[in-house]
């Protein structure tokens, strides 16, 4: 099924947002179901089996995070993008812990949402648990324990700063996907930074050193000239 015919469930309690985003997504070729509270989102997700869910976090009757938790508890692995309203670091961390496939801070450019929807749909494995919901990720001899916040290479723990570990986590949960520096900044740092490009490159250099990954002949992280980075090793989910 091509993404253009996919059904999306959009849950946001703010009518000005839902009323503007729904026609935009319809124009982009999706069929959009709109709900304005968490409980309705849960019911619609269970009844209509959309290909992707876009969930706001702060909603009446049940917040987006609880909706996601209940879906995952019922083994419904529909790809989900969480829209965080507050944009706090803790909220972003929780979004990852609860298995959101991606997340986007308000206010965002609707085109950015569209790009995320397409990327998530592209890597979705229908009915299967996504990498974002797994606690342990492995790629050849590299493994990342997301709960313990520890990465090991060939069984040896590698020394990484929290930011470098978060970069590795984002790359491993989005393998084989071109990830721009701007997106990494938003996902890992949460803010726009003036020296954004260099900020990301500095962390990437730290990560590569720790992984003993040669940028000229990469085993894990490939540089896409003028764009960003791509995690090229095959990632398996465990736990």
């Amino acid at each position, binding site marked *: 099924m091509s993404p253009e015919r996919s059904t999306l469930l959009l849950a946001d309690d703010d009518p000005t947002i839902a009323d503007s985003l729904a026609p935009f997504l319809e124009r982009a070729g999706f069929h959009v179901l709109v709900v304005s509270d968490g409980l309705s989102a849960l019911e619609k997700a269970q009844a209509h089996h959309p290909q992707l869910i876009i969930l706001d976090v702060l909603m009446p009757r049940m917040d987006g995070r609880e909706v996601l938790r209940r879906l995952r508890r019922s083994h419904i692995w529909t790809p989900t993008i969480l829209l965080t309203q507050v944009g706090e670091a803790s909220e972003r961390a929780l979004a990852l812990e609860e298995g959101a496939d991606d997340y986007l801070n308000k206010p965002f450019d609707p085109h950015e949402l569209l790009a995320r929807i397409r990327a998530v749909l592209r890597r979705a494995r229908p009915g299967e648990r996504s990498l974002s919901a797994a606690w342990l990720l492995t790629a050849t001899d590299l493994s990342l324990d997301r709960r313990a916040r520890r990465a090991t290479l060939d069984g040896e723990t590698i020394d990484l700063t929290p930011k470098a570990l978060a970069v590795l986590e984002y790359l491993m949960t989005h393998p084989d996907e071109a990830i721009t520096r701007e997106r990494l900044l938003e996902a890992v740092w949460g803010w726009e930074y003036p020296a954004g490009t260099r*900020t990301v490159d500095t962390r990437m250099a730290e990560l590569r050193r720790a992984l003993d990954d040669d940028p000229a002949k990469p085993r894990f992280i490939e540089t896409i000239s003028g764009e960003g980075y791509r995690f090229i090793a095959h990632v398996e989910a465990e736990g």
Partner: protein
Amino acid sequence: MQKKRWINLFLLSLPLWVGLLSGILAQSFLQPELPVLFQTDLGIAAFVFGGVVRQWALFAFALGFLVSLVLVFLYYWDIRSVRQAKILIMESLREGEQSRRSFLRRLDHEIKNPLMGLRAALVNLQESQAADERQHAVENAGRAVARLSRLLADLRKLSDLGERPIERARVDVPDLLQDAVDAAHVLPAYDGREVSLLIPRVPSPFPSVTGDRDLLVLAVYNLIENALKFTSAEDSVEVRASEDGQAMVIEVADSGVGIPEEDVPKIFEELYRGSNTLSTEGSGLGLALVKRIIALHDGKVHVRSSQAEPRGTVFTIRLPVTKRG
């Protein structure tokens, strides 16, 4: 309240009354020449002294008077301290309330201008048929949205800074200053300008600081942006670093018109705009962010500025130097 105070005063003066009563009783009912002995056993030493009833009566009265005097003094001292503490608390609450109100007033001002621009652009879009006018309205709306987004992003940074722990890693200062200067190249105010970066060659290697590199770059960048915005193309902007064994000193200096004296104490306040900055682009949170970031690194930031010759402004950041080892 008043009644309680009288009761307290009566209780405090009890030693006086007891002393007075003892004196009167001794004078009235005991024989005047009867000797009275006091004996106090302190283990090894024993003190014995004697006197006559009249002396004892005087002694009891004087002792009661003195004890009461001391107690009343302590009582009033205590009341005074409590009153002073209350005044300080009230002043701090009043200041907090004033600062909250002025923040809301400034926020209202910062939001209403771009919102007004957005409303006007929407009206133009609705009513105009000419393609160029509609295009112009779209561009204006985009600018208003960008301004609101910047304000929101800076507000989020300020609120995030209080909530999340900062990274504590060794930070190379010349490298971080170079990053901040490089990042400033994209600013429209940088066009045709030069920012000089002055790093001493001694000591070598230059001492480092401990902290969150990204946040420190942001702090220095904000100061450079500030310097570029409030100076003209003829003015100089310098970023320099030095260390005095105790602290790393980072300065961002410019030869611009300077900050009016009355604005200097307030420029680090959230959303404060000085009298000569009202029409300048910016969220009004840049310097507040600098102050918060530096405080999180156990450092200090201050400004000195002169509008008279030699004019200019110098922002100084002092950060603890990382101990070697």
